[in-house]
């Protein structure tokens, strides 16, 4: 076994970023104030769909402390609408035009209609009540299937229908080739001895972060806009701000605060409100701040997963999958969301639908509808929560049809040769799904559970086991990323060493709690042989960092950390040159070791110099350096993925369902994950623990509910229910059956994004397994006790009658 470097790769190092936060010295967005700042609050539409006939702001303008009241009409000629190139390129679908405030009509309950700027937020809220808007209600478009019907009223009036995106995932096949492919899928399904046909429905839910959004902008005639913003992607915000305000990029600086209270995709988009805040700062020549309320957050941001799958899945007599057909429909809401437009998620989800399985023939069709709801937004898992639920459930049902343990069916159909390419064109670089899966199977002891299950049933108790898997592509190549997001995927880091040997690493992402200060420090510690406490990480400031796509899709471990390693390795070359030159010798990099704060010549351990001394030698004593070298110790590195970095998770859920109340209790939950080389087990386990709990919370509790008139009924944390400590179990996490990732220099895989996706399948399968004696299959989410009780009750009554 490899020896652990103190605080280096593999160490369970407590996080560096914790201490200030624990002392109450975190620096979150709301902790930043600028003297003289004004406060914005938004008046939001009470209607799902209505024409704005008039807005009377005169009374509001007269109230104490009110500086300005702004409407859509006032800004439509002052700033450009989205889409603009930074958030409009790439994605092959429609992009509705929108301004930060509604123009002419409102398209969802909660859309900003007017903004008050006042001396205090209390006074701003007072003034909201004095704005009078006359609306003419329009028909609510709220059902995705009805919305796609040609007769539906239109959400965007300049469109001829409500279809924002569609795809048949034909990859690189020509139209003719694809027609043949589909024909073959159809034939195989028709001829297969075992076929499951089922509709699966995932509800609108997501991961609302505990810290809401916010923006604070300052205008300065020389430097332009400086905007602090809660964002996972500061550089993208900068590009879009520059575009809508018609400023050169050099006049826009965006800063994501050092500490951010969670993102999970919700802080990864270009939203209306910060664009307006920046505009107002310039317009009013005063600092302007907006601190989102939870109500606004639950109404306008963070809604995801709203999807229908009509699946047909077929296997041959030997239990090998032969073909898959899936008609996917997604409710994108109004689609007015810079970056993903409500459909990048289902698009990616469709591409990733075949998951870990050999499925040579897939007929997958996706149609995404716009409706009068808040735009669908990225949420941890980026589009794969719904497809994983649908396919993993279908596999479970198929196994039952064949008459085998579901685990056996999965194991028989895993992709085993890499690199692999799915029929949708998506590539997997490496992995060993069987090994990781077998570890899970070993941990759960299926035969023993079946014995207990039988025994329990004889006592009238319903217990079940569900297994599911999920492949996540974290850190993809530039081309794929450009297609999906309109930007490249590479990671850039700038590393510099001061004359005491302290290392600072700067990069342009906006971390939101992933522990990147610690893992980056650990990689530096490992590579340079220094104490991780001697590493400082800077992020989030577009002025001091180069372009970076952002803290998204598990890129930290799979892209940023490899870039850090590359930078360290290049830096070491220079240090070695200096050491060798000073000793008047010729030596290669590999002849020196970097450990415990020293650089030591392997051929003679007397030639040993401390890292700190060398840092001073090169940064300050910068004379007599090797020919061609200059003073200073700093290095930039860029890491580009050649193929998608893949991570893999296998989950097992054990449940008991009460026939008295329909309540589901999770009695055990185990995961086996391939996170590649683990930099910090504490952090990897933390990501999985948290990700699985979020999945459980989505599955049972959370739901954004719109009533028949399109009123959003879940805009408080009492009505939008997030799991509390007593509602969830402890997750047993194993990552000892992973495989190093060959496509990056560290062997890492990004586990944070994908670890949520197997959850709905595992839980759905477990509950269905428990209730198999009653013939109940879980097909719709969320699973709530009341409806489940009724289904059980009906089945039990039928049983008694029979």
């Amino acid at each position, binding site marked *: 076994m490899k020896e652990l470097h103190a605080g280096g790769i593999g160490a369970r190092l*407590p*996080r560096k*970023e*914790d*201490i200030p*936060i*624990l*002392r*109450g*010295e*975190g620096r*979150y967005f*709301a*902790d930043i*104030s600028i003297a003289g700042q004004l406060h914005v609050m938004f008046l939001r539409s009470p209607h799902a769909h209505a024409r704005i006939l008039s807005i009377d702001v005169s009374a509001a303008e007269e109230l104490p402390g009110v500086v300005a009241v702004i409407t859509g009409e006032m800004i439509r000629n002052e700033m450009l609408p989205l889409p603009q190139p930074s958030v409009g390129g790439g994605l092959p679908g429609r992009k509705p035009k929108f301004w930060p405030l509604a123009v002419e009509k409102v398209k969802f309950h909660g859309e900003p209609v007017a903004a008050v700027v006042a001396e205090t937020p*209390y006074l701003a809220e007072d003034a909201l009540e004095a704005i009078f808007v006359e609306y003419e209600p329009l028909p609510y478009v709220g059902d995705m299937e009805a919305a796609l019907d040609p007769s539906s009223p239109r959400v965007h009036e300049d469109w001829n229908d409500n279809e924002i995106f569609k795809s048949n995932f034909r990859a690189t096949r020509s139209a003719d080739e694809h027609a043949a492919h589909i024909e073959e899928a159809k034939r195989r399904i028709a001829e297969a001895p075992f076929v499951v046909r089922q509709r699966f429905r995932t509800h609108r839910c997501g*991961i*609302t*972060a*505990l*810290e*809401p959004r916010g923006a604070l902008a300052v205008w300065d005639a020389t430097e332009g806009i400086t905007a602090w913003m809660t964002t996972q992607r500061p550089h993208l915000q900068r590009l879009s701000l520059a575009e809508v305000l018609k400023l050169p990029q050099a006049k826009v600086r965006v800063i994501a605060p050092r*500490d*951010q*209270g*969670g*993102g*999970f995709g919700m802080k990864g988009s270009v939203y209306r409100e910060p664009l307006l805040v920046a505009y107002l700062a310039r317009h009013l020549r005063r600092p302007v701040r907006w601190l989102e*309320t*939870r*109500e*606004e957050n639950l109404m306008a941001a963070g809604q995801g997963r709203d999807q229908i799958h009509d699946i047909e899945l077929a296997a041959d007599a030997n239990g090998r999958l032969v073909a898959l057909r899936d008609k996917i429909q997604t409710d994108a809401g109004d689609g007015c969301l810079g970056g993903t437009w409500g459909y990048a998620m289902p698009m990616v989800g469709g591409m990733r639908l075949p998951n870990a399985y050999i499925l040579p023939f897939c007929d997958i069709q996706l149609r995404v509808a716009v409706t009068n709801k808040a735009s669908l937004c990225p949420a941890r898992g980026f589009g794969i929560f719904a497809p994983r639920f649908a396919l993993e459930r279908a596999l479970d049902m198929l196994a039952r049809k064949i008459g085998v343990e579901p685990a056996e069916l999965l194991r028989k159909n895993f992709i085993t040769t890499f690199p692999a390419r799915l029929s949708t064109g998506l590539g997997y670089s490496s992995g060993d799904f069987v090994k990781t899966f077998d570890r899970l199977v070993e941990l759960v002891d299926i035969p023993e559970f079946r014995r207990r299950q039988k025994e329990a049933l004889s006592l009238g108790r319903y217990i079940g086991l569900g297994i599911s898997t999920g492949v996540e592509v974290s850190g993809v190549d530039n081309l794929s990323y450009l297609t999906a997001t309109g930007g490249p995927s590479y990671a850039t880091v700038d590393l510099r060493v001061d004359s005491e040997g302290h290392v600072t690493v700067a990069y342009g992402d906006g971390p*939101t*709690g*992933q*522990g990147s200060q610690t893992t980056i420090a650990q990689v530096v510690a490992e590579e340079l042989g220094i104490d991780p406490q001697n590493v400082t990480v800077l992020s989030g400031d577009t002025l001091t960092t180069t372009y970076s796509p952002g803290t998204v899709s598990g890129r930290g471990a799979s892209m940023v950390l490899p870039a850090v390693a590359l930078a360290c390795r290049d830096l070491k070359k220079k240090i070695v040159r200096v050491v060798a030159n000073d000793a008047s010798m010729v030596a290669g990099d590999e002849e020196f070791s970097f450990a415990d704060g020293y650089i030591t010549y392997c051929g003679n351990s007397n030639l040993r110099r401390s890292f700190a001394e060398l840092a001073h030698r090169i940064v300050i004593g910068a004379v007599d350096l090797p020919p061609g070298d200059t003073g200073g110790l700093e290095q930039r590195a860029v890491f580009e993925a050649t193929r998608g970095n893949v991570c893999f998770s296998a989950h097992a859920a054990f449940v008991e369902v009460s026939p008295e109340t329909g309540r589901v209790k999770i009695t055990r939950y185990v995961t086996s994950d391939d996170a590649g080389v683990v930099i910090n087990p*504490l*952090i990897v*386990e*933390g*990501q999985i*623990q*948290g*990700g*699985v*709990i*979020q999945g459980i919370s989505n599955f049972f509790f959370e739901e954004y509910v719109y009533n028949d008139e399109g009123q959003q009924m879940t*805009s*408080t*944390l*009492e009505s939008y229910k*997030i799991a*509390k*400590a*007593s509602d*969830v179990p*402890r*997750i047993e996490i194993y990552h000892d059956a992973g495989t190093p990732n060959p496509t990056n220099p560290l062997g890492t895989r990004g586990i944070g994004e994908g670890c949520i996706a197997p959850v709905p399948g595992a839980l759905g399968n477990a509950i269905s397994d428990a209730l198999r004696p009653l013939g109940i299959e879980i097909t719709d989410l969320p699973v709530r006790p009341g409806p489940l009780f009724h289904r059980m009750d009906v089945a039990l009554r039928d049983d008694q009658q029979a």
Partner: protein
Amino acid sequence: MNTSVSITINGIAYERSIPIRMLLVDFIRYEAGLTGTHVGCTFEGACGACTVHLDGDAIKSCLVLAVQCDGRWITTVEGLAEGSELHPLQIAFNEHHALQCGYCTSGLLMTGVDLIEKDSELNEEKVRHGITGNLCRCAGYSNIVDAILSVARARTHEEEV
């Protein structure tokens, strides 16, 4: 509509003239400048990120007016450490990786300290029940429970010795 108050926070008396309607959490954050106490909901008081101690009891500072705390004493997360010496629960949170984004953390520390100080027989179930007023979105609770229990057990052990 303004009124004068004197509220003692972490041992320091803050005398201010404030609007009656000012929430305690805004007094703490903007009048006293102690930004470790966070806000995570609108009016419902359901997230617990703003939890502080009022006369020794954990309460939500967004569901109390500052004026109601005139003459009373408050402890916030900034008051847990004694100088450079962290409270044992702060250390335990670090060691058990009980925080990710950290936004819920100050509230959970205040609830956790309240639990530890008032119940000498804590177990996992009691701790989970005790922190239901604090939502954590990242960590999935188990590490938080472990951190609180580790401090509670160390206390029990100390008392036995």
